[in-house]
């Protein structure tokens, strides 16, 4: 509970579950959820290093806040792209999104 390795392993497992989901899903929203899992693994890593190794406790927390802010921006953009794509092809299956022409 109070060692760096525990948290690193939890973060690595979360990241790997995210990788698995990203590769396996065909629904775009499912892939977005997997990306959120990977981002959370990364921020858990930052917080663990911040708690056990880092010189200043503020820095890791600020980094984690930035990751959350960018995750929010990424989700907003991704969801709007998904909605626009759904209007065009009536599906959110990634295998049916085949053309780039606007």
């Amino acid at each position, binding site marked *: 509970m109070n060692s760096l390795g525990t948290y690193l392993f939890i973060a690595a*497992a979360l990241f790997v579950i995210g990788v698995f989901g990203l590769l396996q899903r065909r629904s775009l929203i499912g892939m977005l959820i997997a990306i959120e899992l990977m981002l959370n693994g990364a921020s858990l890593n930052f*917080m663990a290093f911040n708690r056990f190794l880092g010189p200043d*406790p503020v820095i890791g927390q600020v980094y984690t806040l930035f990751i959350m802010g960018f995750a929010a921006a990424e989700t907003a953009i991704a969801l709007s792209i998904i909605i626009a794509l759904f209007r065009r092809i009536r599906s959110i299956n990634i295998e049916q999104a085949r053309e780039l022409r606007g």
Partner: protein
Amino acid sequence: MTPLQELVDPGLLAQAAFAVIVVFTFTGALIAVLPRNILYNVLGLILCLTGIAGLFLYLGSPFIALMELLIYVGAICISIVFAIMLSRPLHLSLPKRHLPKVLGAGAVALAVFGVLAIIIFRTPWHAAFVRGNDWSITSIGAYMLTRYSLVFEVMSVVLLVAILGAILITSTGGRRAP
């Protein structure tokens, strides 16, 4: 000592709570990835993110735990729920799983985990020589407005551009969608 502390050892209680949180996190992560019903995925993601907020509490930062609940669970998961209405109707039969794809994804994930585990084991982690212990929210705010003010501004601009871009992409330009 309070009566509860006489009954149960606080350290043991903390470890039990930690185990429960870790189990919640992994259960949520697996639910977020494995079922094909997208609603279950989002509910699993909410469970997982709540568990991660608990882990942030154990890592000594109640502020980040609150932000995790506020931003991830409160904003991101709910906006994903809004987008779920685009998913296929839940009463239709789901498409079959593509077994080679799932196996390949599992193999790649296991390989990545193996590499990460080797890195975690092999690296000799050294703590910094001088370590501060100022975990207060006040100092976070002071850093964000002094030393990290540029990154703070950039993040604000990125969020603004993201909002505008989202509105632009989803708007139909005044006409109805076909």
